[in-house]
């Protein structure tokens, strides 16, 4: 994944590129715009020769639209005056809680609604069922930070305050990290080494009773060739802390400035993200980006959990992490080391 960005940077800084569309991770959007490598999409949508009148931009899930598409607002990566559209979501996601209905029923457990219950139930499941309570990413670097941010947001914390002063190490930051430590203590063995693949596998193979991660996980859960827990999984909202705040992230499609055939690129982009195509892809197991797809009766019949997902999207927080140029470094080299060291017990979480 890391290597993809290098390649894209090199590719898009050539005088003339070989790609007319570029699939990026949400974190990179600000950097690509700042380095003048991608172009705004509005002129293309304004071009009657290109724009599809039935496209319906408003139908795109607003939080995805803001999170992946907008750059240039007052906070840079959020909506607001000055923000322009540079990309469209294509594989976006938010966080939901997957849980094992069978295990919860067996021990007569209620699905945790808030972080107090969430914390308590970890130990209960571990003791009663003998398997990991909650599986989680935990590998040093962006993986463990991602998991920590999942808890930090609803607990009311943030990496920076509104004046861009670091606050990740305040009381809430410590609380979130301690929660994470309990997740490791009660979870499947080896979480501090888990990437997303290992975290997934633990749940799919029945080694963990819960998994708080992305909506995009649903495809794997329902695939009998990869999952041993098909039919036993329930979905719930990301538990509430002082507020509800689920994650926002995923992939988007943008158009490099050095594209050789920008019009063709736009047409493809428009088609890929159109209503019909979104529904078709979703039915094949893809992640929808449109409200119309989320609400489509046929789709909901196929994926009953979309009812919960749609609810979760209401709480998806576009300011879930700061999408600034320095974020990669803070994420991987600073927080990624510190959180990891807390998970192995090398260092204790404490306030500064």
């Amino acid at each position, binding site marked *: 994944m*890391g*290597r993809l*960005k*290098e390649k894209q*940077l*090199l590719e*898009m*800084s050539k005088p003339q590129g070989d790609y007319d569309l570029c699939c990026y991770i949400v974190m990179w959007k600000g*950097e*690509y715009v700042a*380095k003048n*490598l991608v172009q705004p999409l509005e002129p293309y949508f304004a071009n009657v020769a290109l724009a599809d009148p039935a496209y319906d931009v408003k139908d795109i899930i607003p939080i995805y639209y803001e999170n992946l598409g907008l750059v240039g607002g007052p906070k840079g990566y959020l909506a607001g005056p000055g923000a322009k559209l540079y990309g469209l979501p294509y594989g976006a996601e938010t966080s939901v809680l997957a849980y094992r209905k069978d295990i919860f029923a067996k021990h007569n457990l209620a699905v945790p609604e808030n972080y107090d219950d969430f914390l308590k139930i970890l130990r209960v499941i571990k003791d009663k069922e003998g398997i990991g309570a909650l599986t989680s990413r*935990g*590998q*040093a*670097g962006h*993986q*463990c930070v991602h998991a920590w941010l999942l808890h930090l947001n609803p607990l009311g914390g943030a990496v920076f305050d509104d004046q861009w002063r670091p606050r990740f190490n305040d009381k809430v930051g410590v609380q979130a990290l301690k929660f994470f430590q309990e997740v490791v203590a009660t979870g*499947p*063995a*080896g*979480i*501090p*080494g*888990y*990437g997303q693949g*290992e975290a997934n*596998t*633990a749940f799919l*193979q029945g*080694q963990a009773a819960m998994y708080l991660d992305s909506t995009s996980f649903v495809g794997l859960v329902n695939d009998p060739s990869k999952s041993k827990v098909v039919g036993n999984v329930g979905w719930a909202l990301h538990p509430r802390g002082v507020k509800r705040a689920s994650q926002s992230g995923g992939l988007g499609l943008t158009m490099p400035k050095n594209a050789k055939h920008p019009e063709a690129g736009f047409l493809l982009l428009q088609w890929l993200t159109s209503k019909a195509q979104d529904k078709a892809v979703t039915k094949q197991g893809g992640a929808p980006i449109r409200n119309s797809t989320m609400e489509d009766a046929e789709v909901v019949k196929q994926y009953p959990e979309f009812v919960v997902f749609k609810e979760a999207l209401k709480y998806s927080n576009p300011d879930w992490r700061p999408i600034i*140029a320095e974020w*990669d*470094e803070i994420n*991987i*080299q600073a927080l*990624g*080391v510190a959180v*990891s*060291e807390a*998970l*192995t017990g*090398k*260092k204790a979480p404490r306030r500064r």
Partner: protein
Amino acid sequence: MNDNTRTGWLFVAPAVVIMLVACLYPVLSAVHLGFYEWSMGTPWSEAKWAGWTSFQIAFTEPSVWRSLWTTLKFAAVSVSAEMVLGIALALALESNLRGMAFFRSLFILPMMVAPIAVGLTWRYMFDAQFGLINAVLVALGFAAKGWLAEESLAFAAIIIADIWQWTPFVFIMVVAGLANVDSSVLEAARIDGARWWTVTTRVKLPMIAHVLAITLVMRLIDAFRVLEVIYVLTFGGPGESTEVLSLHIYKTAFIGQKLGAASAISVLLLVVVMVLTWLALRMSNPMRDNEGDR
């Protein structure tokens, strides 16, 4: 310089020049880049002269020294284990001529696997829940371990993966070296009263000292540059426990977007590798046997 040597120099000059340029250009450009602040994806014209800042960072940043220390430990442990195991295997199997062909082709496999695949394979093997290593440990009556979840175990894991991948290289080099040893010298040693251990340590291995030295140097250089396997296996963690210098350089360059600092650190790495290579070559001086030759 007589006429003959001058003509000789003329003949090799183009090759020497090309070699020098090919060897020095990347080094010099790394040094050059070290003096600038520049970010990938921006035009070079926007690069800012930064003077010695990057080198200062390279030499004062604790994480640089930590990762250098990690690299030293990694190289020392894995390369010495590879040398010992590779030599032992070669000695054990060299006489078994029929088995040899089989083992040689078997042992060559790990080296041919792409480093990313090696990393992935070992990541599965070390998996705490489903990994083969823990399965074997449990079958043998030991407790399963969180291999990639604990600092010391993760460090052991990257070493084990490296040993698995590179012991065969040592093995093949040593086997090739031993194949060139005049067997009558070994017979002379037997007649002189040397038993297996003495023949091995005082005759056989000294006779391939130059091969051992070259092998050692090649392994050391490689061990200092190891990146992909660790990237995939641990990404430097837990904490920074497996963050070797090349991974640190990678992160500095492509995650921290500090290409200048990354270049400065890679110059540091280059210097360390050169010093170590020089030491290793001196220790086992492969040229010594040629003293007074001609």
